């Protein structure tokens, strides 16, 4: 085993209660470690991360003159910082510390105590063998730019923006749609209190617009992100509205003047249930109150032969048909991603007939139908203008299904109950809810379910197999027949209805993967953004300074999204107010004396941190730009590049230690 005469290693193994001790014989490992070269002291302790555990290290350093610390416990991703701080407090450089992961990497994943203990011994040996070659390093402190970027102007982004701006920080809120508000703006009422979505959301939307600390970049998308925590450099592409935003007051004169007398094009905000013109504003309370032109349907853009009646109608000269996408550059210190979700596409569940039978609706369409400002003015009528007398609401559409999305979308039970209530109120129809399990875990949610049970709404426990127009008697004729097993009775039922509502689930936005790559964060298996820790760091990501909130992290209702937005805002503010960030000193440097100037390393670096000095004929690494991947190190034929914390000798000693007793 490699030896460094001066190294005096203190070794500690943590029981982690029973988490480690149950599967790894910690005493045996401690005894084993005591006999290894350079080890002066070896101890096992119930909870190393506790205060007494950390104080023990400090005391031992003093008494035993330790100058290297190795702790075998959980993952370094969880507690490396804790123990580095403890090492530092004990008076030795924090990088004279090495952590051994015997919990996530051993005790939690194995079933054979003997083998797990053997593995732990190998890992401990490797760490001790490595730590003797550690060097003292200093973390670099970098100031944090106090400005914040928030991506996504749904309820999460809006809440976070207001919180941060109210703390006196500058916020850039980027929204890809022409207006903020997100999905919440489309809802009629919100469960379980049934308060009007618009009434609680629109004041927040206008607060965003009015807030001096918030710069709203609507109809814009982030196109590039560079830099690191505290110092991000962001490019935002502002899509052309063909209207000069500052000039437009939202008087709608242009819309009235459009050459299309009748609205002809599918209105996205109303889920296609109504029509709009090429020049339009998404909905009356759109924020900002600025119209835009859809260049795919506008005659001017299609043929160039439009008399431009809209522009002529504008007395503020707000029209600019030559607008091009503009890239705006921002410098921010932290970023909040609140990019939301997309509803499950009901056409992916063909057995429910969406798109085939006109009376099959998605829940979002029904939200618009029951909405007083919706396409029918709040009258629930079918596409043939008739009023439904019976309505079936099918839960879990696209959710809890291996063929589509495996997860429970969390909100559908509750919004289905809400829609059942609203539909009952609007139509007095017979309403059937088809559910697999009724999930109402929230404040006032179960009470809402109770209320519905007593409102005369029918509840049938069973997953609907099919919606079809196959009638087997006159009663079913002309209706949509829902085939389902009433599992509580154990019989198959055929229920004819006039209207079917598909409670579509929540899935990751279709650009989630692009966003993830751009911001260098991870996604969980299902495609939602991955949090740093499911319990302890739910709004942080593995990339420092980037936080997530709302349904981009997983299915989530409004109260939870708002709460999470607050949490993310608090995390960002905490970072900003600390004033600076400490960077891991795992950067690489070139020993100039050895560099031959072959320039193989230069292309290895994705951050252009390596440059070639023509005068000297040597390459040079700009430490500020280096992010510490180490790829250049492995490329250097001269061995002239060293990566701090991951030096060749350290890794080779670790390998040796792992394998050789």
């Amino acid at each position, binding site marked *: 085993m490699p030896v460094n005469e001066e190294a005096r290693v203190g070794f500690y193994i943590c029981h982690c209660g029973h988490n480690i001790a149950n599967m790894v014989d910690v005493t045996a490992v401690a005894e084993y470690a005591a006999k290894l070269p350079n080890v002066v002291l070896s101890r096992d302790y119930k909870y190393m991360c506790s205060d007494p555990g950390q104080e023990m290290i400090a005391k031992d350093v003093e008494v035993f003159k330790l100058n290297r610390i190795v702790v075998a416990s959980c993952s370094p991703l969880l507690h490396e910082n804790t123990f580095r701080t403890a090492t530092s407090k004990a008076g030795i450089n924090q990088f004279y510390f090495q952590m051994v992961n015997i919990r996530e990497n051993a005790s939690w994943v194995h079933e054979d105590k003997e083998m797990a203990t053997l593995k732990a011994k190998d890992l401990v040996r490797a760490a001790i063998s490595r730590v003797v070659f550690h060097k003292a390093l200093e973390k670099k402190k970098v100031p944090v730019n106090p400005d914040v970027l928030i991506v996504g102007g749904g309820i999460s982004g809006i809440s976070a923006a207001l919180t941060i701006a109210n703390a006196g920080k500058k916020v850039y809120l980027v929204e890809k749609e022409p207006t903020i508000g997100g999905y919440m703006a489309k809802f009629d009422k919100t469960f379980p209190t049934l308060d009007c979505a618009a009434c609680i959301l629109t004041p927040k939307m206008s607060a965003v617009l009015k807030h001096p600390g918030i710069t709203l970049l609507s109809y814009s998308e982030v196109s590039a992100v560079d830099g690191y925590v505290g110092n991000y450099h962001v490019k935002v592409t502002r899509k052309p509205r063909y209207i000069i935003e500052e000039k437009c007051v939202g008087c709608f004169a242009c819309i009235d003047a459009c050459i299309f007398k009748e609205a002809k094009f599918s209105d996205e905000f109303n889920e296609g249930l109504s029509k709009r013109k090429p020049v339009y504003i998404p909905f009356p309370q759109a924020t900002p109150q600025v119209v835009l032109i859809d260049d795919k349907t506008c005659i001017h853009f299609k043929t160039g032969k439009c008399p431009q009646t809209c522009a002529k109608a504008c007395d503020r000269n707000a029209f600019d048909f030559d607008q091009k996408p503009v890239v705006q550059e921002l410098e921010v210190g932290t970023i909040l991603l609140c990019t939301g979700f997309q509803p499950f596409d009901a056409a992916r569940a063909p057995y429910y007939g969406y798109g085939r039978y006109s009376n099959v609706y998605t829940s979002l369409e029904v939200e618009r139908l029951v909405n007083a400002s919706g396409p029918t003015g709040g009258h629930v009528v079918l596409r043939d203008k008739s009023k439904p007398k019976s309505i079936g609401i099918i839960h879990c559409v696209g959710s809890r299904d291996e063929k589509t999305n495996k997860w429970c979308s969390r909100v559908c039970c509750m919004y289905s109950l809400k829609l059942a209530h609203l539909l009952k109120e609007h139509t007095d129809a017979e309403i059937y809810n088809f559910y697999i399990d009724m999930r109402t875990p929230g404040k006032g949610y179960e009470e809402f379910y109770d209320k519905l049970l007593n409102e005369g709404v029918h509840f049938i*426990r069973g997953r609907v197999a099919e919606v079809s127009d196959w009638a087997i008697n006159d009663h079913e004729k002309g209706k949509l027949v829902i085939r389902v097993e009433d599992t509580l009775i154990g019989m198959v039922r055929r229920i004819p209805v006039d209207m079917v509502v598909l409670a579509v689930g929540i899935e990751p936005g279709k650009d989630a993967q692009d966003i993830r790559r751009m911001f260098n964060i991870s996604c969980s298996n299902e495609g939602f953004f991955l949090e740093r820790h499911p319990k302890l760091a739910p709004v942080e990501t593995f990339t420092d300074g980037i936080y997530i909130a709302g349904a981009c992290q997983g299915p989530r209702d409004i109260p939870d999204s708002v709460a999470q937005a607050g949490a993310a805002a608090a995390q960002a503010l905490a970072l900003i107010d600390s004033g600076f960030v400490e960077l891991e000193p795992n950067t690489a440097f070139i020993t100039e004396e050895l560099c031959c100037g072959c320039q193989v390393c230069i292309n290895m670096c994705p951050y252009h941190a390596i440059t070639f000095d023509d005068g000297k004929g040597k390459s040079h690494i700009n430490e500020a730009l280096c992010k510490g991947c180490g790829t250049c190190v492995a490329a250097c034929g001269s061995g002239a590049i060293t990566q701090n914390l991951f030096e060749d000798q350290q890794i080779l000693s670790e390998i040796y230690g792992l394998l050789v007793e």
Partner: protein
Amino acid sequence: MNASSSEILTQGLTVKLEADLDKNFGETIAREAHGEKLFGCIQCGNCSAACPLSVWMDYTPRKVIAMVRAGFKQEVLSNRTVWLCASCYQCTVECPKGIKITDVMYALKREAIENKIYPKNFPVPILARTFYSEVKRTGRINEIFLLTNYYLRYNIFKMLGYASLGVRLFMKRRLSLFEKGMTNRKEFRSMLNQ
């Protein structure tokens, strides 16, 4: 154990005692059906509603799954439910948990035959077994021989109902006694008997 209390209680149709269950039944069937995930069933009943035959079954397919994993072996095998499965795979393609229910039904049929627990003189297993031995014997199916043997085993009088159809088909040369068969039946049999 107090035998009399037990007897009194189990006379009810809605009572099942733990001691009367076959606790390994679920595992056995899951293994037989290629590790089928029947323990992952959430009892949503989609299979029952999708099944074109469930209306004639004693238990719905969903209930069969629940009974299998709980160990109601006797109940599941002794009635005609599993034999009514026509292998149309509608349940399998629709199951949200990806359970290959048709394969579970096959496994139950095999289990029933192995344990000799199935409804007496029930035609479906008889046809299956006749078919099975016909193929094993000759390598191919001749419908005349298949049906004749089936009715001989099942109920010869039932055959009469089909006589006129048979004659008509025969006249149309859609049934034949002399269809070309396999040439090396012996080798085929010995392959299977390995």
